């Protein structure tokens, strides 16, 4: 059985907006999954359901073989398995210093003493937030806030990490740093699910892609296959990745996996 299983999940907001419509999805452990789609396609709602903040009105949600029910107890257990990094780090950072903010989730996950210190050191090392630890969040740059927000979620030691638009408003260097963090997490066999509009990144990074529109899944599969499907891209309002566009233009037989490989060839 997959680590995360969604079976015919539907979710409607109180104002009767149907955000998710019969979603079925399975995610294996260690997978790098990207969710793409236009604004309002249901990506964020899907993430909120996956981390247990929203409970689907219909369907089944199974995490690590355990079905999640609409109970507080389930949510309290779920945060140790599925962590969610919000698009806007401002909503996530609330403590008076970076160090305290990062420690919040770890303490809630039951860590204390040496374990807590080791966990804090590990996530601060990974996210390069050591030198910021005494700073209050409002004195940080946007990129730094984003890194602290990721560190705060990683400190809960989740198996699955959901990142909503992790590169939004980041400069190139900060984007590279974030990708480095994602790669490091992947090496630790963590499952990473991101929602993004950066189709070039998706093509190079993800090993599974989910295309959403109006609360439904239009297609799921390997990005190299899906992103060549022009009809699907048009239906989802997406652009073809630059590598594929160039490869087609140059009539290349092979499809390079990364831009770096493309430029080398």
């Amino acid at each position, binding site marked *: 059985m997959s680590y995360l299983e969604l079976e015919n999940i539907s979710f409607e907001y109180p104002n009767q907006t149907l955000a998710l419509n019969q979603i079925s999805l399975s995610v294996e452990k260690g997978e790098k999954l990207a969710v793409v789609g236009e604004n309002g396609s249901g990506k964020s709602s899907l993430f909120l359901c996956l981390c247990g903040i929203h409970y689907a009105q219909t369907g089944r949600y199974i995490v690590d073989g355990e079905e999640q029910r609409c109970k507080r107890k389930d949510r309290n257990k779920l945060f140790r398995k599925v962590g969610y990094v919000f698009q806007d780090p401002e*909503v*996530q950072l*609330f403590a*008076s210093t970076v160090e305290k903010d990062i420690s*919040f*989730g770890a*303490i*809630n996950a039951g860590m204390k003493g040496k374990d807590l210190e080791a966990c804090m050191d590990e996530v601060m090392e990974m996210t390069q937030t050591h030198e910021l630890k005494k700073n*209050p*969040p409002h004195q940080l740059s946007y990129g730094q806030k984003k890194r602290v927000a990721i560190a705060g979620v990683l400190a809960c030691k989740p198996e699955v990490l959901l990142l909503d638009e992790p590169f939004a408003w980041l400069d190139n260097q900060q984007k590279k740093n974030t990708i480095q963090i994602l790669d490091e997490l992947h090496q630790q066999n963590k499952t990473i699910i991101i929602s993004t509009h950066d189709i070039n990144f998706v093509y190079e990074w993800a090993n599974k892609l989910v295309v959403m529109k109006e609360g439904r899944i239009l297609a799921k599969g390997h990005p190299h296959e899906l992103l060549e499907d022009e009809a699907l891209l048009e239906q989802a309002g997406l652009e073809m990745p630059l590598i594929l566009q160039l490869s087609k233009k140059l009539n290349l037989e092979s499809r390079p996996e990364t831009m770096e490989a493309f430029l080398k060839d």
Partner: protein
Amino acid sequence: MFISEKYNLLQAKLTWHPFEKFTFFVAFLLGSLLTQNILTPFLIVAGISAFFLSHGLSLKALLEIAALPMSFMLVAVVSIICIISRESFEAIYIIQISDYYIGFSQLSLDKGIFIIGKAMGAMFAFYFLILTSPIDEIEYLLRKMKVPDLLIELFVLSFRFITILLLFSRQCYLSQKKRMAYRSFSSSIRSLGMLVSSVLVKSLVHADFSQQALLNRGYRGEMKFIDAHGSFVLKRLILPIIGMIGLIMLGQFKL
């Protein structure tokens, strides 16, 4: 921007334990409030000013923070110094307006100066605390003083929300201003109203997202953080306590 943020160079330089700073603050505060003479508050203001200047605060910044409470203080003190009476009285300066005599006597002047001194001493004691202690040290002190968790969490969240909303309202104000929203009195009033309502909506939306983010990190109605301040050596309290006793005793002399 908060005053503690604007002049936060002292916070970075001073590595004392929060309790040590707090004891000095209490010493200065009690020294100012329990005094019977003007000398003690004067010494406190001069001492704290010298401390600030020696730790890198510029004279201009010092005068700026000293001037902050002055407007409120002067209004309050003028009402004490000024005497308005229908009968003439012994005064340093007096004028008659219609049937009334307005002026001030030596006694009222002494009293006014004494109150200003006391208030400035207490104000500088507070400046000492907020300019040397970052917000997390204040939070630490509140926790150690067993202030109810609910109040501390409110304090932490309010501070965070205020910083975000200040930033948002500044951006919103600039965007309005660039579109000539404050060109006349009536449009200013309308724009200000729109600004306030958008800040209110933003705060509601933000609070909703923040709650989701807290739940996502295992929030169950209690905020616990790492204690990064280490243990406190009682020996370090000797100097501030001696200072406190000295200032209170000095304040009891009638000069």
